[in-house]
């Protein structure tokens, strides 16, 4: 078994957003089911956290600080989780059921380096 970091990404200009209150509640419903399902299957290693937009990027020995939201990144990272899967193929398949896909978002699947 390997572990994979899921980064839930959403283009800032997704035409699906923000949607009506009804859409938003449906979205929440899907997310709740998604996490419940992953937990039931025992594949959810770390639930993770939702992330606020904004923040800062610090670089160049602290001399360069970019305050978010960053003009150069086209999408927002909504949050992250860690999921357990047999291999990348399985991790990809699981990510295919993520609700963020239903409103214009994407999941970045990154294997966690284990040595």
């Amino acid at each position, binding site marked *: 078994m390997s572990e994979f970091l899921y980064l839930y990404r959403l283009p800032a200009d997704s035409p699906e*957003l*923000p*949607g*009506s*209150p*009804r*859409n*938003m*509640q449906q*979205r*929440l*419903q899907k*997310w*709740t089911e998604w*996490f419940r399902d992953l937990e039931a299957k025992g594949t959810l290693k770390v*639930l*993770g*956290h*939702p992330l606020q937009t904004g923040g800062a990027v610090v670089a160049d020995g602290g001399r360069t600080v970019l305050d978010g939201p960053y003009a150069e990144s086209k999408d927002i990272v*909504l*949050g992250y989780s860690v999921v357990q899967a047999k291999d990348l193929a399985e991790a990809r398949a699981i990510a295919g059921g993520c609700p963020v896909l239903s409103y214009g978002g994407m999941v970045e699947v990154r294997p966690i380096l284990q040595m």
Partner: protein
Amino acid sequence: MTAALPDEHFFRRESGRLVSTLAGMLGVHQLALAEDAVQETLAAAVEVWAFRGVPDNPSAWLMTAARNRAVSLLRRERTARRFAPEIGRQTDAEGADAGPDSAVAHLPPPLRDDELRMMFSCCHPDIPEDAQVALVLSLLGGFSAHEAAEAFLVSRAAMEKRLSRAKKVLSGTRALFELGARDFETRLTAVQRALYLLFNEGYHGASPEAAVRLDLCREAMRLVALLVEHPPAATPATQALAALMALNAARIPARVDESGDLTELARQDRSRWDTRLIGRGLELLEASARGEVVSEYHLEAAIAATHALAPSAEETPWADVVELYDALLRIRPSPVVALNRAVALAEQMGPERGLQALRSIPGAERLAAYPFYPAALGELELRSGRVDEARKHFRAAHRLARNPTEKTFLERRLARCEASKKP
């Protein structure tokens, strides 16, 4: 932590409550900011609750978050002004370093009446009736412009225009309507009318999606309940309006079957009517029977009550129904009311009298696009044994049908014509 949401309309309802409260706190001229704050709050709730679960008191969570969001939007607005020196200087001099936090702190605490006041604000006399209804649906019902457009069968662009014009008038009023204001009564009449139209759009609407838009009916009933609970607004007409909604809504389970097909009153399985709603409706109707004025809502509720109490279509006191329609025609003459009266008359006096009444409806040309006019002609011709005539009318009605439900309904009537053709 993992409390469930009360029901699938929670976000819509909360949206109405939050927008009303923020507009009450900040003034209606800040309506756009209030709407932005609420939208951002709900979007944030989706993300946070997805990971952390729904909090124990989701309404309180949203209210706090929305207030904070509004404050930060106000601060951003103020900062933007500060960096536009010409516009900013004066305002800043006045406000010193007070900041938006204290601006909010000085505001009165949110009142339970904010939704009610917003409802009255939406029915401003300078806003046309159809826009008032749209505005109520949008601001209090949490419908997006797109959803409201679908509900009223207009294009999205047309609905956006209708809403933005109405919001412009609304924003010009600055404060939410005062429930003690001099024109309370006049405004109440407009509010009742808007809720009536909203309910009817749901009940009889021409939406392509379904014959009954339950959400619209539900929303109208929720809002009319707010009026009923607020003494100055709970006039006999308000109670009668609430009664008529309850009594008509009671028939919904029998009116539309599982596949979404319509069943007309005479053929409905009355055991499927909602007895709880009928009870509530009768209670309200009784409460409304005071005072001098008999409103159109009283008459419509009385008609609905007569049906609700009749054990079958045959045992309905049709003479009473016809009389009630006559009284309704005197208050609000309309070809649709006349059509319903003619159908009741046919039940009372036979199909020929009904046909006669149908053909002599004043302003019948206004029914030219209404499928139930030829459908009623067809029904009565069929009952008179003139099958070919009946078929002609049902075909005309079928061409006018506005949604699959109406089409299916009329196809069944056409099939009935074929069946009665055979010996």
